[in-house]
């Protein structure tokens, strides 16, 4: 793993630890606010809860996205692909805030509406990447695999998925970064996350809190991008 890939993660960790000590700095930057540092929950708690939201939404999104992507590329399933694309495209066309707003009456306040929105958003890049990657497996390789006597399951697991793995991992990376950014919106519905200081700052007219929440959310997205990028590269480069 190259050190450059770790840099965003280190920056994020440093910001997480340093921010609680920065009361004086924020006081100087925003002299008009009475309480320059967000202290209702510790930033580490917010970050962990945020990461929890991301993970909890990413796993189902990966399962649905990869599953639909595989289903859509099976022979005689062209319609599945069209329907899946339309469905998930629609889910992404609706803004996250709207999904959350619609979800609140159905599933209540808290983490649930945020999770619902996140799953909707993270599924599309995974689905697109999976279907796209599987479609690029050369037809003569598939012909050879079937001709060698592989069952459809063996063709999928021994040939198609290994060949499609790098783009699928790239899709997961996009989904993860998207989920980190979108999870902050979950604070609107009362989910505890790095968006909480942002919402609290907006409601109370405290720009310092908004900056603190936004800074950590942004750095977390960078950290996830860097870590997953470093993870994806050796996988794609290594011969089996």
């Amino acid at each position, binding site marked *: 793993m190259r050190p450059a890939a770790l840099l965003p993660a280190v920056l994020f960790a440093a910001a997480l630890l340093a921010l609680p000590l920065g009361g004086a700095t924020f006081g100087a930057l925003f002299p008009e606010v009475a309480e320059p540092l967000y202290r209702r929950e510790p930033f580490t708690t917010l970050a962990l809860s945020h990461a929890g939201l991301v993970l909890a939404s990413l796993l189902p999104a990966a399962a649905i996205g990869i599953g639909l992507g595989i289903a859509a590329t099976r022979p005689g399933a062209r319609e599945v692909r069209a329907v899946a694309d339309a469905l998930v495209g629609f889910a992404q066309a609706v803004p996250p805030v709207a999904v959350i707003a619609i979800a609140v009456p159905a599933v209540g306040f808290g983490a649930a509406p945020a999770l619902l929105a996140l799953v909707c958003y993270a599924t599309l890049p995974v689905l697109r990447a999976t279907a796209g990657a599987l479609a690029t497996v*050369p*037809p*003569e*390789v598939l*012909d*050879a*695999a*079937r*001709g*060698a*006597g*592989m*069952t459809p399951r*063996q063709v999928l697991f021994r*040939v198609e998925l*290994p*060949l499609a793995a790098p783009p699928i991992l790239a899709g997961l990376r996009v989904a993860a970064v998207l989920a980190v950014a979108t999870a902050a919106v979950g604070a609107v519905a009362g989910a505890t996350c790095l968006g909480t200081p942002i919402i609290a700052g907006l409601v109370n007219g405290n720009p310092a809190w908004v900056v603190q929440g936004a800074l950590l959310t942004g750095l977390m997205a960078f950290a996830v991008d860097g870590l997953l990028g470093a993870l994806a590269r050796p996988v794609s480069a290594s*011969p*089996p």
Partner: protein
Amino acid sequence: MIRFERVRKSFGAARALDGLDLVVPEGAFAVLLGGSGAGKSTALRMVNRLIEPDAGRVLLRGRDVAAEPAPALRRRIGYVIQGIGLFPHWSVARNIGAVPRLLGWEERRITARVEELLTLLRLDPAAYRDRMPAELSGGQAQRIGVARALAADPDILLMDEPFGALDAVTRQALQQEMARLHAATGKTILLVTHDVEEALSLATRLAVMADGRLLQEGAPRELLDAPADPRVRGLLDGGALGMRRLALVAAASIARASGEAPASLPRIAAAATGRDALEAMLVARAEAVVLVDEGGAPAGLVALRDLLRA
């Protein structure tokens, strides 16, 4: 033995096979020759059930291929395709061992078989075993493709335009390689091509197809001498009928005793064809050529007029 019985197949409105009847004898090197759209690839791919017939049936050693689950059937049929289709994420050894692995062979036996096949295809095992397909030339990759098809010692070998993507020199080398492998293994081979020269140089049985039907089947020489259909004549003639006929004749079969062969005459190997003999005469501007055996001793003489008996 492979037997096609009144096989029909349509893809949408396009009729690929229109009642194909064909028998490929055991041990034959059978070539399906035809233009594009003749239905030859469709016919080939029905033998290992990559395509299922709409009507009729395909029998392998007397047994309907549909009677067996397709994966099991395919594991005992070698399959070589034009695009080569090596698994790009697997090493050469893993590619060759694909079918044995599916059959559950022990790892040690697979390793030994891979060595054996690389040697058979004249590739140094130590140098090629661990290479990835991207590190091979087209000719090397197709040799690996052939080795992979032979790995589990299949009853028959199906080859779909196997040398179509190769340059002329490599193609010829691999054609000779296949003729040698056929002679050495005695396997039944069914090869599809649109290349007349390739068909004539490889086939022990030649089947010419057009519009999803069989036009004529027989020994290549029979088809050249007595084409049953204008389309067969048109395809095989190509302005080179005489040369093609010469290429099918062993020079030794039209040779006379050499006596004291003049040293000035060109010399060619006794295994050469009549066409090789003519070529040697034209090159040397001589009216005869001396055949020599492996030891270099004269084994016969072919004069220009002997070629007329070919």
